[in-house]
């Protein structure tokens, strides 16, 4: 593969933002029919490199060579016209339009009369999807299909607009395991059968090992290594990414002697879940695992008064909520809830301290919250969870994903609750940040709080839970002790 000249090559790329160097002397190349993965921690420079590759940034030092010619892309549109297509993590689809319309977005075939040629459009869309192994009705609105199909639609759109090179940014972060399988197959298919070249950016190293021919590791804006996927291992990649060996294991379980049930859910039924029974003790972490759509995230919301339930009871430390309670009531009774969406729960433009004090502003500041009092409340909790940099005045949007998550957790310990409900605590984080966030949860457990970790990532649940409850289609299907020999595959088999 390396004897032929690469289709795309970046040489000595340096990109600065003001005084900050985001990339320094980075080299990257891509051959025809190759999948080249790009991995690294958050902030390692992946996104910057991706934006240079896709034409978003055009001011940088170094050479961009496409088909042997030195070029400088003017815009993402220019990139696409030269055959470089980008598939973003957050899909660029129109949910209300049909599958076919999405595939032909902006370039619908026209009839002689100048109107949209629906027949041709639907036929071609159907054929192309079938070639990729998908048999679906292209006339239905895209929103009626699961995320995996929406992604395939986006991939197809980019390919049909002439992309030879596909840049895929975290394509699987929101997919279910089955959909991930299908996507991996699709990527492998595109590479070997359709001779596309793919740049694959992902945090999931298992996946990377399966799709990539080569893997380039970035750290702190520099090349660390480019290795053949067949000649490396996940452990080696992790140590390349981190620049150090991974922390062996998380702190072990505390032996709690006196059992005290903090959270008790009895026969809870609502729109997305049915007859749920679950107990959570003090000093215990329960992992609530399920695929997307299993109803576990909605159950978590229901605990916080943000998702309606029709029957059953929720009891916190002896107090049972009425059927119609609000988040405010839940907070008062000692519940803390960290949503799976940081964008929805945090105020990105507001200072860290304001994000942290909001849930307990009445306790912290009374009627007239003062800056001094608020910072005095926020700083210790930020230090406790190790937010880096620990600057209460900085907007939370300036932090990395892992540190934002720490802020989202820290806001609840200014006035300690009894029970933490944490949805998807480590989504989209690198290995180091994941371990840090999970050890915060373990610390809470050791201090005697009850922690409910709600997640669709088996690794997360397995890493911290004392007990794992598996949900599928709105029902609890299994409950098992996490003794340490439990495997990811075993968990996924239960669904």
């Amino acid at each position, binding site marked *: 593969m390396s004897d032929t000249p690469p289709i795309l090559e970046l040489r000595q790329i340096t990109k600065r933002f003001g*005084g900050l160097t985001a990339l320094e002397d980075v080299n990257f190349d891509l051959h025809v029919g190759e999948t080249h993965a790009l991995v690294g*921690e958050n*902030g390692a420079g992946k996104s910057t490199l991706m934006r240079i590759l896709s034409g*978003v940034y055009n001011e940088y030092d170094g050479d961009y060579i496409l088909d042997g010619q030195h070029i400088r892309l003017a815009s993402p549109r220019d990139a696409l016209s030269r055959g470089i297509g980008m598939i973003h993590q957050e899909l660029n689809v129109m949910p209300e339009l049909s599958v076919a319309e999405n595939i032909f977005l902006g370039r619908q075939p026209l009839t002689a009369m100048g109107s949209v040629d629906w027949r041709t459009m639907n036929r071609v869309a159907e054929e192309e999807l079938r070639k990729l192994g998908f048999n679906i009705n292209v006339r239905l609105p895209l929103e009626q299909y699961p995320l995996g199909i929406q992604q395939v639609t986006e991939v197809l759109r980019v390919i049909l607009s002439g992309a030879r090179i596909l840049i895929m940014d975290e394509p699987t972060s929101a997919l279910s395991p089955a959909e991930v399988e299908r996507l991996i197959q699709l990527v492998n298919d595109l590479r070997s059968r359709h001779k596309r070249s793919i740049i694959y950016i992902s945090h999931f190293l298992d996946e990377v090992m399966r799709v990539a021919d080569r893997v380039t590791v970035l750290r702190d804006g520099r090349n660390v290594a480019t290795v053949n996927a067949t000649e490396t291992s996940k452990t080696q990649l992790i140590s390349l990414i981190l620049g150090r060996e991974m922390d062996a294991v998380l702190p072990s379980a505390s032996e709690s002697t006196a059992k005290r049930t903090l959270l008790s859910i009895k026969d809870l039924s609502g729109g997305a879940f049915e007859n749920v029974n679950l107990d959570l003790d003090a000093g215990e972490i329960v992992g609530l695992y399920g695929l997307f759509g299993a109803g576990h995230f909605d159950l978590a919301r229901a605990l916080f008064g943000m998702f309606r339930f029709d029957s059953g009871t929720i009891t916190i430390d002896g107090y049972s909520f009425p059927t119609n309670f*609000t*988040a405010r009531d839940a907070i008062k009774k000692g519940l803390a809830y960290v949503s799976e969406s940081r964008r929805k*729960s945090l*105020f990105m433009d507001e200072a860290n301290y304001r994000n942290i004090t909001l849930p307990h502003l009445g306790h912290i500041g009374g009627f007239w919250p003062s800056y001094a009092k608020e910072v005095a409340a926020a700083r210790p909790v930020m230090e406790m969870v190790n937010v880096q940099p620990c600057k209460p005045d900085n*907007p939370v949007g300036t932090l990395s994903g892992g540190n934002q998550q720490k802020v989202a957790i820290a806001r609840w310990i200014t006035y300690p609750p009894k029970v933490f409900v944490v949805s998807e605590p480590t989504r989209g984080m690198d290995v180091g940040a994941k371990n840090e966030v999970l050890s915060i949860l373990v610390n809470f457990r050791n201090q005697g709080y009850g922690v409910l970790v709600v997640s669709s990532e088996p690794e997360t649940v397995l890493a911290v839970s004392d007990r794992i409850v598996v949900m599928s289609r709105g029902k609890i299907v299994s409950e098992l002790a996490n003794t340490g020999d439990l495997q990811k595959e075993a968990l996924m088999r239960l669904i």
Partner: protein
Amino acid sequence: MTQTDAVTSHLHEEKRSTVLKRSLRTLAPLWTLLALMLFFSLASESFLRPINLNNILVQISTLAILGAGMTFVLLTGQIDLSIASMVTLVGIINAHMFVNMGIPEPWPSLAAVGVATLLGLLSGLATTRFRIPSFMSTLAMSLIASGLATWISQGRTFFKISEVAAFLGSGRIGGPDGLRVLTVVAALCLLVSFLVLRYTRFGRYIYMTGANPSGARLAGVNTNLIFTAALAISGFCGGLAGLVNMGRLGSAQPQVIDSFMIDTIGAVVLGGTSLNGGRGGIIQTVIGLLIYGTLRNGLDNIQQLDPFMKEFITGVVLMGALIINLLFSGRSVRDRT
């Protein structure tokens, strides 16, 4: 670990420069104001005279009272289209009670402002309970208020007004050359709003609710209460402005002065308060009001100007000022994420 520290401290430096940029952006409306004042003081001899500057303050006082309430509403990300009708309704209720029913002050004034507050509250309840966008609920409320005014007054104008309204609208404090009461009322409204928004917990909830409603709910903020309160405050301000306006005109007319609504929203947004909620505040509103006042008054002071051109020029300058604000705020620049 040291490498990550280095990266984060770099990131931190980058953020600091954006903080600086942000404070420069918020000053954009101030530059607009200074440029306008400079222009008019060169173009007209009379513009900078104290009496004229005082005139500007009087001219924008009613707008300022309305603007204080509107700032609350816009900060929560809602809008209030009913204020112009509130101004009219309050005048009619007051005059009807005082003139036709012979009820002595302060009851007519209290009742009138109370009704305006209540109607604001109802718009808020319609918005939060029934999920009607405030754009529609306050539009309907605007018709309800102006309809009530027409009904109560039977279409007639009241030329007799109560002493309270007269005092608020045309009285002076400290002799015939003293401060106009309406300017003082406006200043008080702005001051109280400023203090509430900047320093109270309620003020923080207003900002946070506007910036990210779901985030505020997740932090236990009763966002429905906040939305409703903002609209009720706007109703109250509409009521106060109604009394002042009636006193200034010396009559209560059933016709709605539509320009109040557009001018208020225009001034508040011009100052830099976002229509999307969460950004802006009373200081911005004050600057926006001054820009508005300067422009209106300044054009009056240029003798050579064709009076029929004024509105056109006002529109052009407003458009220009909005574009400048947007350019400085970096919003028109493509989002890089």
